[in-house]
């Protein structure tokens, strides 16, 4: 059965967005909708009364440009707010985040009116493209911010600090080394390589050798901080199958508890691998959203300077 997030079973996007834009966003949503509609109505009425329509340099066009830019700057200040966590007088971060979302969207209305619904020249066209990407990545990020924490909660029961995952892997690997050494003795790299028939027979009849070989080939690389994508133990069914075989080896009956602990270490590593992947999807959009926002502000300043100069 494929993975389903809570609330997804009912299965509609509408429900997802109903959760994304919950009751705490209602005022922001209504405020944005009302202000946006009013701004659009005023613009359209004014444009209808102005021969040839309004331009960005007209009275209303300029003011809309200023307001749209101010809203963009406000939205961009969310990142700056992190640098001054002590400035609590600026308001709750949650409020800023909602303002970031809704006022950022509202800026779209003002900027569209400012441009007169034209793409403009190369600079303005670039600004539009970047602005659109910022909006899209922002909406995508908003969705991810809702979805991923729920997925992590469901799929990663033993969540760890993301930055510590490599360290935890190393610790787990050390623990696994100790467990296997305790069962099989110190590791001898040559012993696990049967070079002749006698060696092969010896390997086939020795559970400890097979455990060591299984550990060195599959388990230890899997516990490495950088787990390969094709690692078989990433698949829980394969992992369970392999460990069942090892547990069934005749001379490892006494070591079943240790082998079970080894299996749990692998399971936890698998869980951390999932967390790493989900964490990447949770935050990677910021690698696009923030730089584009910065570029948008820089080019926006260039647009203002050149437009006001001419």
């Amino acid at each position, binding site marked *: 059965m494929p993975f389903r997030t809570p609330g997804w079973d009912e299965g509609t996007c509408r429900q997802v967005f109903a959760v994304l834009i919950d009751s705490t966003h209602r005022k922001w949503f209504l405020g944005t909708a009302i202000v946006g509609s009013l701004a659009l109505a005023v613009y359209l009425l004014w444009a209808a009364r102005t021969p040839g329509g309004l331009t960005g340099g007209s009275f209303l066009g300029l003011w809309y440009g200023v307001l749209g830019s101010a809203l963009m700057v406000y939205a961009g200040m969310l990142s700056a707010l992190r640098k001054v966590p002590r400035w609590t007088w600026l308001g709750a971060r949650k409020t800023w985040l909602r303002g970031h979302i809704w006022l950022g969207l509202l800026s779209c209305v003002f900027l569209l009116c400012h441009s007169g619904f034209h793409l403009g*020249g*190369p600079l303005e066209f670039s600004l539009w493209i970047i602005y659109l990407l910022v909006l899209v990545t922002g909406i995508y990020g908003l969705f991810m911010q809702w979805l991923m924490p729920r997925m992590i909660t469901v799929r990663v029961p033993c969540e760890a600090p993301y930055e510590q995952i490599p360290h935890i892997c190393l610790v787990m690997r050390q623990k696994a080394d100790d467990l296997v050494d305790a069962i099989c003795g110190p590791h001898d790299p040559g012993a696990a390589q049967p070079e002749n028939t006698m060696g092969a027979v010896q390997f086939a009849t020795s559970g400890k050798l097979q455990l060591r070989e299984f550990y060195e080939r599959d388990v230890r690389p899997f516990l490495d901080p950088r787990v390969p994508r094709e690692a078989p133990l990433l698949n829980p069914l394969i992992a369970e199958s392999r460990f069942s075989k090892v547990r069934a080896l005749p001379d490892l009956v006494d070591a079943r508890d240790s082998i079970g602990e080894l299996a749990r270490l692998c399971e936890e590593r698998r869980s951390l691998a999932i967390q790493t992947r989900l964490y990447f999807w949770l935050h990677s959009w910021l690698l696009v959203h923030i*730089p584009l926002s910065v570029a948008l502000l820089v080019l926006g300043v260039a647009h203002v300077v050149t437009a006001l100069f001419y």
Partner: protein
Amino acid sequence: MPSEFRDPKNLANWIELDYFRRPSPLRRWRRWIIWGSLVLPLLVVVAAFAFPGASTLFQAGPVSDAHSMFNEDCQRCHTESFQTVRRFLPWNESVRAVSDQACQQCHEGARHSARQVSEPSCSSCHREHRGRTELVAVRDSHCTSCHANLEPHRQGGAPSQVENVTSFPSGHPEFGLWRRQESDPGQLHFNHKAHLAAGGLLTPTGQKRVLQCVDCHVPDSAGRYIQPIKYENHCASCHPLSVQIVGEVKGDPRVEQAVSAFNKIPAPHREPALVRAVLRDRLLEFVRTQPLKLQGDNPQTLDRSVPRSRPLEMATPAQWKWTLGQLNDMERLLFPHVQLEVNERVLFQNAAGCRFCHVEKSRQAGTEAEGLSDLPRYAQTNIRARWFEHSRFSHQSHQMLNCTECHSARESSLTREVLLPRAETCAQCHNSRVKAAYDCNTCHDYHDRGARHELHKLNTIEGFLHKAKH
């Protein structure tokens, strides 16, 4: 399921307690990318400012083709400052960075109306940096801002013959000539219906010919308007102004040939006095080149006889010889005079003469001394070269239509009938449903081309290019 190995009580064994002091790879990457996204656009902008050729990056759109030579020379048109502060104030439509003077360096920008209360600036209607179409095709709202209610925008109020216009076709009045119930001022008898008879017309050669509109109404080289009708090009082949040597000519083939040649050349299509002069000259020339001749001694066989002259009575050879001597000179005077009189009667008095088409006003007065007192005077034809003078039209653009779809010529038999279309005829295609162009400047020019004035023309090529560069 919590981790079996990472006991919160034993956290120090599992995590590095100072890990948050060290930057994570993700954050490090993000920082680099953010700085890159800050520096890269800055470099692009600085480079664009540094390279003059890249200034087009900052333009709101490419300039039209006509202005492409100034594309890198913003100051050529943007002669005024942006006046940022004033632009933030309401009702700032008069604030323009491009002055009218900048446009009028090259464009005359003829005025719209002398009675206009205020003249809008060039750039308020002609929006540059939006391509040629937008530059030339001024939107209707520019026109209707005044013409929807003309009275406050015109000195002395709205004239009675101009009605307010809001759009076409619904908000457009009937064309002026129909509102004023004008008739064709042409002073010429012409029957379109007869000329366009389906059975055709009998030509002087005896054959029938079915005429089409374009046989007479030929568009100009631009395909816009119809060239004036010219008698020589369009009428003469069927309506020649024939003149003839009247009388019987026998015997001498040389004289017969001369008479035939004379008859083939019609009278000129000019004013009567000139026709008379030309005819007299031709007849005198004829007499000079074809002197009177008698055949043998028979006084009854004249080569040329004077029309309606009585037959000569028999005379003795001596008398005849004497008479011949006297007649030589008299014939030179009498023959042209009589011939001229007959031909003038045909041309100026007969219904099939000039009066067939032209309207006779009166006879010449006060010119008896010049011998013109009996000549008729015809009214100027007064055929209008342009009808809708405040609009423009292209016949070429409408060439897919039969002429009679718009001009009801097949039903018109009187000159005074106006054969131009009404607004409703145009509105059949020029409307929002069919989508043939129906904006103001499809038919109307804002600038009064009749009020052209000379440009300053002070530019030399070198000076002009120098200005364009700097």
